[in-house]
């Protein structure tokens, strides 16, 4: 019997939701890391019991946590439990939270400046890890998207991190500017047909692609149109909120931008708008059905200042035609007086059949659908504000 595990990061800790393949009865465990912000948790596709979590605090910075048993126990990679010891040298360095930007001569010293909100140059300052993306085939390799925007990689299970400096150093970095949530690298997609090809997205710089495993990067924003920047079709400066792909068709990308839902059929070389009949083309998350590569889910949000659903109705919109034609999925979702938001990393799908779809809200609800979005139930209703949701199908 298959199982599903849903990893939920919130403003005040992590929660793990588990069910069998029917997905109608759920066990909830947590809070793990109570009191800390959990920006993201994700399991390794190569070893589903290997989980990584980004734990952070404005006060005390960044912590990386790892579980090797599906979330039953956690540790900071490379750091032993806090048993007092008289042998100081016995401790490893505990550098799993050491995210230091690359300034080495070998990589061309990419630590320049980026733009501050007012257009003045601003130094890169590490704040937190927004997204952790484990390798598709190696549980010890994991990528981290961070604020201020950069991508790091660990090849030793999260003990040590090294920046893939070619991203910030490729040339447009000095023109990047933070979005309202900070200058975050929030999306990392690995192409399953060619793991050396990765797509990332940054608010508010845009989307970027590497074809050589992260050494060289280039912007892939042709076709994006952003009226809130001086040159609406600039090479960088676009506030991309999220990108998604279906593993069976990795050259087709879907994007929820600050405004506009976009689609690319050529690996990001060019984009076209597919917002179609959505009630608003603003929103944060976007995801693709696990088995139907033209079935896409978004959660329209009224505007970039109000950040709640139109008319107080929480509706997931589904397109089964790869965009443009969208239908509201409302069964089981509140259709009055609902003013929550759904953040960019707070939607996920599982790979069971029928495909499960999950999303979490800033009101603390996690909704699940076991039938591809047709109907929804609240798995939990009263968690802290949900920041991220990741679903895993387990054998």
């Amino acid at each position, binding site marked *: 019997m298959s199982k599903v595990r849903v990893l939920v990061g919130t403003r005040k800790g992590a929660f793990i939701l588990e069910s069998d393949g029917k997905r109608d009865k759920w066990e909830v465990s947590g809070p793990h890391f109570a*009191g800390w912000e959990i920006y993201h948790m994700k399991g390794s596709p190569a070893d589903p019991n290997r989980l990584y979590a980004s734990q952070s605090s404005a*006060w*005390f910075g960044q912590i990386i946590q790892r579980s090797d048993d599906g979330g039953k126990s956690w540790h900071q990679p490379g750091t032993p439990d806090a048993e007092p010891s008289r042998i*100081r040298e016995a401790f490893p360095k505990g550098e799993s939270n050491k995210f*230091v930007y690359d300034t080495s001569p070998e990589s061309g010293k990419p630590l320049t400046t980026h733009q501050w909100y007012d257009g003045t140059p601003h130094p890169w300052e590490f704040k937190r890890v927004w997204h952790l993306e484990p390798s598709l085939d190696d549980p010890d390799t994991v990528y981290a998207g961070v604020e201020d925007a950069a991508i790091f990689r660990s090849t030793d299970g999260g003990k040590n991190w090294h920046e893939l400096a070619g991203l910030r150093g490729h040339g447009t970095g000095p023109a990047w500017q933070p979005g309202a949530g900070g200058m975050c690298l929030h999306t990392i997609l690995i192409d399953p047909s060619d793991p050396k090809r990765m797509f990332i997205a940054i608010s508010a710089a845009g989307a970027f692609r590497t074809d050589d495993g992260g050494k060289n990067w280039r912007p892939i924003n042709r076709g994006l149109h952003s009226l809130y920047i001086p040159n609406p079709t600039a090479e960088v400066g676009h506030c991309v909120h999220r990108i998604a792909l279906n593993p069976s068709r990795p050259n087709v990308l879907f994007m929820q931008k600050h405004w506009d839902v976009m689609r690319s059929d050529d690996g990001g070389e060019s984009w076209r708008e597919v917002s179609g009949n959505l009630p608003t083309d603003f929103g944060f998350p976007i995801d693709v059905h696990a088995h139907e590569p033209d079935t896409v889910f978004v959660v329209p949000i009224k505007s970039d200042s109000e950040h709640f659903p139109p008319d107080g109705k929480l509706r997931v919109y589904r397109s089964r035609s790869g965009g443009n034609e969208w239908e509201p999925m409302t069964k089981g979702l509140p259709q009055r007086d609902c003013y929550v938001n759904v953040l960019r990393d707070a939607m996920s799908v599982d790979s069971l059949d029928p495909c499960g779809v999950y999303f979490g809200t800033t009101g603390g609800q996690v909704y699940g659908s076991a039938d591809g979005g047709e109907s929804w139930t609240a798995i939990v209703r009263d968690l802290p504000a949900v920041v991220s949701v990741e679903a895993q199908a387990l054998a």
Partner: protein
Amino acid sequence: MIRVVLPAHLRKLAQVEGEVKLEVAGPITQGTVLDALEARYPMLRGTIRDHATHKRRPFVRFFACEQDLSHESPDAPLPEAVATGKDAFMIVGAIAGG
């Protein structure tokens, strides 16, 4: 024996309850106390001061003997009462908003 009071978040992270007691060799300064603290509890590295620069994180403050020591040099001697263990060296999460 140096006594160190950690804020709740860091006590949880280090899996300790109450004060931490440390043996510190040589001069008793912010720097040597934090070195000893991080050596014994390496999971605290980067949470109190920056990994690379060793500068205090902006929302962390240091107090002892009813004095704010946050802006003292990391190499300045701590008060005698801290060095003798009479008073604790307090690491405090600054309040920045409600």
